[in-house]
């Protein structure tokens, strides 16, 4: 087993991980950073974010606007002290990215242009055409080469954390090319491993978005918070789930049903005119739009495609020039993957799983319940998204809290002692043996079989609309799948070198546990709030459920679900209203 001694280990090389690593390096070049990622960082899923990142910059916008849009967008389940910190630091991170070379789109005079997103009172989305995540990620990845204290360990798959006496002292990873183990000994760890969308079948997420970071922390006793809140993005290609960015609507696209009718006006987002206007119709929040699709589908007013029902995302009135300039990736993706030219035809779209609002519970400094373990980005729950994330807040979150996590970890590392080598090696050997046990299993089921049943169970029982019966059914099914997984998965491939079947078996073990936390949290929350909609409890219930959900692992059994308070500072819960009267907005 190779041993790498370092100060801070960052697991994950997407937006949050890279920003964390750079933050450590900028704070003190003498602090060693090991950036451990299962892919080369520029392959990370941040790359697929399209629309942009929020940051108050216009003279007619305020931090209070961003705060209020975020808190009402999250149906008041946001921790308001953390939201305050977040909105106050978004713009400076966007400027930092600009200084590092990010090609943000501009006005004619060379100043930054910003666009509308759903649920936004004033335009505040910084964008680089519709490849904003791609540019953000590549800018961070390329900039990271400036800092020699960042040592990258690309294509290293993290299988366990080393935790001694409640403090993290290392991480164990498989070097994918050889299948050999590397033990990283450190003083602090930043988890920046992204979401868990792939526990569902139809989603926008890349194949690597399998939630191990959540699983790693959860297995060591950290709580997963608000896991029932899963965001369905309303506009994705049927079948593949490929994302058609919200920026389409931010630039003026409309949604129609099979009769060409703008159906959102029937679901609390109207009236139609004047159009466009902020926080109304197609500029409503994602949860409401996805839910409207569900009802429209039930009414039989959707378009039928070979890959399932859909509605029309219509960009045509924007004209070819604007479509190609502002939405080049979407144009290419629609032509390639849907065979539709958005200049000529509407794009068929439907909701698909996009984002996990919940994650490893962390405070405003990104500290988790495990000493020395920090979390940032989609794998974390620092408390800004509540029950429904506002579009443009996730890219902003990766950099704002990536930086915080890096600085917190660097600070912690400075005051912490090193690992006990013998104990750490002992733990690492046990973890390695468990992983190797999967390679040697003599009999069992295929990874794809168990994974497929998990995805179907989640779609069915913990979907866009839930019931007690459905969620309980998913809980039972996932428990059964965990038992089958323990009984054995049989790999075709018993080799060590570049064995991606082995890695997917390890991923599956953690996905099942994360899926179980989601299902049990959904079964526990007997109300409807944001992205968690219960047909058998249709109203929001602030008396009983204005609380976070905490899921704690309980061995091979069902997780224990408890609640924790939500921090409310200046915005007491109100009813969440979109649509209504308003003045016409100027799209930028």
């Amino acid at each position, binding site marked *: 087993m190779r041993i790498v001694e370092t100060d801070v280990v960052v697991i994950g090389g997407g937006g949050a991980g890279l920003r964390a690593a750079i933050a450590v390096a900028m704070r003190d070049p003498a602090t060693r950073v090991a950036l451990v990622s299962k892919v080369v960082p*520029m392959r990370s899923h941040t790359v697929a974010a399209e629309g942009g990142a929020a940051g108050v910059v216009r003279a007619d916008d305020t931090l209070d606007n961003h705060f209020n849009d975020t808190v009402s967008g999250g149906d008041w389940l946001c921790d308001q002290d953390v939201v305050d910190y977040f909105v106050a630091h978004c713009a400076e991170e966007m400027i930092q990215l600009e200084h590092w070379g990010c090609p943000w789109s501009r006005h004619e005079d060379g100043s930054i242009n910003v666009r509308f997103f759903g649920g936004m009172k004033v335009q505040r989305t910084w964008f680089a055409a519709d490849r904003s995540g791609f540019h953000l990620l590549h800018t961070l990845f390329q900039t990271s080469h400036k800092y020699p204290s960042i040592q990258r360990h690309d294509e290293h798959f993290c299988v366990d954390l080393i935790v001694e006496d409640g403090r993290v002292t290392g991480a164990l990873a498989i070097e994918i090319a050889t299948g050999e183990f590397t033990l990283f000994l450190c003083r602090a760890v930043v988890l920046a491993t992204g979401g868990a969308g792939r526990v569902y079948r139809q989603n926008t997420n890349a194949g690597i978005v399998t939630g191990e970071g959540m699983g790693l922390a959860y297995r060591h006793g950290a709580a997963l918070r608000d896991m029932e809140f899963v965001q369905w993005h309303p506009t994705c290609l049927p079948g593949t789930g490929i994302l058609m960015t919200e920026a389409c609507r931010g630039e003026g696209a409309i949604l129609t049903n099979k009769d060409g009718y703008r159906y959102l006006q029937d679901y609390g987002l109207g009236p139609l005119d004047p159009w466009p206007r902020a926080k109304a119709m197609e500029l409503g929040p994602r949860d409401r739009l996805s839910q409207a699709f569900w009802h429209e589908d039930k009414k039989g007013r959707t378009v039928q495609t070979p890959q399932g029902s859909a509605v029309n995302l219509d960009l045509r009135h924007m004209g070819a020039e604007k479509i190609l300039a502002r939405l080049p990736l979407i144009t290419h993706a629609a032509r390639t993957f849907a065979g539709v030219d958005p200049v000529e035809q509407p794009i068929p779209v439907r909701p698909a799983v996009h984002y996990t609002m919940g994650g490893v519970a962390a405070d405003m400094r990104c500290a988790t319940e495990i000493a020395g373990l920090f979390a940032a980005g989609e794998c974390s729950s620092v408390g800004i998204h509540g029950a429904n994330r506002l579009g443009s807040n996730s890219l902003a979150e990766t950099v704002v809290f990536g930086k915080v996590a890096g600085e917190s970890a660097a600070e912690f590392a400075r005051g912490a002692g090193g690992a006990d080598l013998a104990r750490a090696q002992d733990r690492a050997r046990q973890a390695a043996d468990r992983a190797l046990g999967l390679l040697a299993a003599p009999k069992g089921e295929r990874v794809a079989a168990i994974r497929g049943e998990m995805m179907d169970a989640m779609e069915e029982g913990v979907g866009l609309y839930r019931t007690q019966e459905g969620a309980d059914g998913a809980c039972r099914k996932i428990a059964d799948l965990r038992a089958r997984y323990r009984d054995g998965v049989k790999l075709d491939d018993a080799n060590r070198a570049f064995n991606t079947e082995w890695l997917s078996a390890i991923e599956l073990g953690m996905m099942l546990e994360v899926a179980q936390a989601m299902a049990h949290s959904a079964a526990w929350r007997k109300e409807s709030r944001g992205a968690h909609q219960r047909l058998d409890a249709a109203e929001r219930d602030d008396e009983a459920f204005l609380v976070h959900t905490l899921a704690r692992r309980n061995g091979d059994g069902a997780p224990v679900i408890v609640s924790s308070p939500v921090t409310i500072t200046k915005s007491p819960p109100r009813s969440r209203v979109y649509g209504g009267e308003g003045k016409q907005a100027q799209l930028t």
Partner: protein
Amino acid sequence: MSERRIRIEGLRYNPEKDTQPRLQTYDVPFTDDMSLLQGMQYIKDHLDGSFTFRWSCRMAICGSCGIMVNGNPRLSCETFLRDLLPGPVRVEPLENFPIQRDLAVDQGRFVDTLASVKPYVVPAQEKPLSAGPHRQTPEQLAAYYQYSQCINCLLCYAACPQVGLNEHFVGPAALTLLHRYNADSRDVGWSARADVANSEGGVWGCTLVGYCSQVCPKAVDPAHAINQNKAKSALDYFGLRSLLGGAR
């Protein structure tokens, strides 16, 4: 309707066991909307879990899934089985890279050279965040924007004969990145990058075959990026860089 199938011939190589690569044949059911990547995933999930290849985003932006398809460098996610009828479809690892296993190649040739081109803004003067963003007009943005679109998929390395012949050649994507920063109005790093650009393995390593630009899935045009720098490099050689104007 009877199920349609297409034959996929995959190159197999396991460093722990094989002395030579070999081809293995799989028959895969398909529908018209299926990508080659989805066909390969079918093999992995249902026929042979040991068949090894990289993929992630499946929407042509992460750059993971580049392979040779019937001898041409392609992204498997945006190559469709319907366009490869009647088959068989041969899938092999990208040319000009050592094989790690099956279709997965060692990407070090690109990744390890990145630092040498200083792929970050070298500013004339560090500017505090409180000073706000730089102004950069759409025209200034356009000067480098195309070259910032590279997804590092390495198809151009598989296409480039010089990558195969000259181990010192920095390579099309890395040199394009060098040009991307040189062409950025916020950057004054040309001289810091000149050693690499002007070296034997730099822009002069390119013999202007231009196949890199043909296979690029993002129309980045590495050949153009590299050859713009030949002019600059030549002027550098004669000490006439000031002819191009400005401090850069």
